[in-house]
C-alpha cells in the first residue's frame, strides 16, 4: 500500500483524487498549497506526490524543483496535475523534474493508471 500526497487548492480535486486512490488501496494525504505540500512531504515521506501548479504560497513547479534539489526526495515520483496545457507549460514541468504531467480536466481512471505506473517504476 502506497502513500500518495495530493496538493491542490481546489477542494473538489482533492476530494475526487483522494476518493479514487483510496478506493484503489492507496493511502492519501492532502495539502491545499505549496508550503503545506512541502511540510507534508517532510512529515509523512509519501511514495508519490501529485501537484497542482497554480497554488497559493508556492507553485507546483517550485515545489517540484525543491524536491529534486533535496537528495532525500530527488527520486520521489512527482506527477503534475494542472490546467496549464500549453506545450511550453508541459516543457517547464518536465524541466522542473516532473515524472509525469496530467492536464485538467482529467480522467480519474487515467490518473490512477499513471499513479500506479509511476509507483511501479520506483518499486524495489
Amino acid at each position, binding site marked *: 500500500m502506497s502513500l500518495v500526497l495530493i496538493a491542490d487548492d*481546489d477542494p*473538489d*480535486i482533492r*476530494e*475526487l483524487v483522494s*476518493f*479514487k486512490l483510496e*478506493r484503489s488501496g492507496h493511502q492519501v494525504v492532502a495539502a491545499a498549497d505549496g508550503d503545506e505540500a512541502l511540510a507534508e512531504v517532510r512529515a509523512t515521506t509519501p511514495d508519490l506526490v501529485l501537484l497542482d501548479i497554480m497554488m497559493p504560497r508556492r507553485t507546483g513547479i517550485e515545489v517540484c524543483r525543491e524536491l*529534486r534539489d533535496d537528495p532525500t526526495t*530527488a527520486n520521489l515520483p512527482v506527477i503534475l496535475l494542472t490546467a496549464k496545457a500549453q506545450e511550453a507549460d508541459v516543457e517547464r514541468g518536465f524541466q522542473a*523534474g516532473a515524472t509525469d504531467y496530467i492536464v*485538467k*480536466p*482529467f*480522467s*480519474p*481512471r*487515467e490518473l490512477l493508471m499513471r499513479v500506479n505506473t509511476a509507483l511501479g517504476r520506483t518499486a524495489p
Partner: protein
Amino acid sequence: MNLNLIALGALGAVMMALVLTLVSSAVHRRRRQRRAQRREVQMRRVRPHLVAMASGEGEKEDEDVIDAVAAEDADLLAEAAVEMLGKLRGEAHSELVALLAGRGLLAAARRQLTARSPDSRARAALLLGATGDRDSVADVARMLDDPVPEVGRVAARTLGKQGDSGAVAPLLASLDGSHRLPLGLVATSLLAIGRTAIEPLRAGLASAGRNGRVASAEVLGRLGAVESIDGLLAALADDPDREVRLRCAHALGRIGAPKGAPALTRLLTTTDDVVMRAICARSLGEVGGPATVALLVTAINDSQHAVAGNAAEALVALGPAGMAALETMAVGGGSGAPYARQALAREQLRNPPEREGASA
C-alpha cells in the same frame, strides 16, 4: 404653528419610512443568508456522492442521496454537477452526464432555453455546455441573439463546449449581428470546437461579415489549418479589410507552411503598412528557409522598432542560421545590433543552458 406641525409630521413619516426600510432590508438580508447557508449544507451533502458516482464507485446510497436532492432542488444538483463536470473528462464525465440525463435534468434544461427568466436560460445553457450536449446545439445557437447580452455570451461559451461544427456559422454571424458578441469570446469558442471547425471557417473567411472573416483567419491560424493556406493567401491579397489581411499574415506564420513565404516576403519589402511589415517579418521566421535570413537581416535595420524587433525574433525562430546571423550583428554595430542582442538575451532566458550537475 400649523406649518411646524406639518414639518414635524413629514419628518416623522420620513424617519418611519427609513426605519422600515432598514428593518426590511435587514430581514431580507437575513433570509438570503439563511437560504445561502441551507444551499451550502445541501451542496456539502450531495458533493461526496457525486464524487463517488464520477469515480465509477457509486453505490445505492449515493444514488438515493442524489435522487433526494434532485427532488428537493434540481437546480442545486445541476449547479453542483456543472462545477464538477468542468474538472473531469473521460469515463468520469460520462458517468455524471448519464446521472443527470437519467434524472431528466438535461431534458429540463433544453426546455429552459426558452424560459422567460434570463437567469434560467443562462443556467440551462451552462448545464448543456458542461455536459457537451449536442442535441441542443441549434437551440443554443438561437440564443446568440438573446436580448440579454450576458445570455448571448453564455450561449457562445456553451457552443464552444458542445464542440459541434454546426455552431461555427452562427458564431461567426454573431460577430456582425445586431447584438455583437466580443471577438475574443467567440474566437475562444471556435477554438474549443477544434479541427472540425476548419471547413466552415474556411467558408467564413471567404464569405462572412468583416468580424467573421477576422475571427476565421485568427482561428484558422491557431488551429494550424494547413488546408486553409490557399484561402489565407487569397484573403491576404484581396480582402478589402486591413484587419483581415493582418490576421491572414499572422495565421500563415502560425501555420508555418513555406508556401506562404513569397507573399510574406513581397509584403515585407513593399508595403508602407508598418504593422503588416512587422507581422510579415515575424511570420517569415516560421515559414522561411535559409534565403530568408538575408531578408530578415535587412529588416532588422528597418527604421520602425516593431519591424526590427520582429525580424530579430524571426531570426531566432529560423534556428542555427538565424542565430549565427544575430551573433554577428550583435557584435558588429549598426542600428540592428541592439535588436540582435535583445533577441539573443530573450532566447537565453527561454532556453537557459543546462546547469552543471543537474540530474537527467
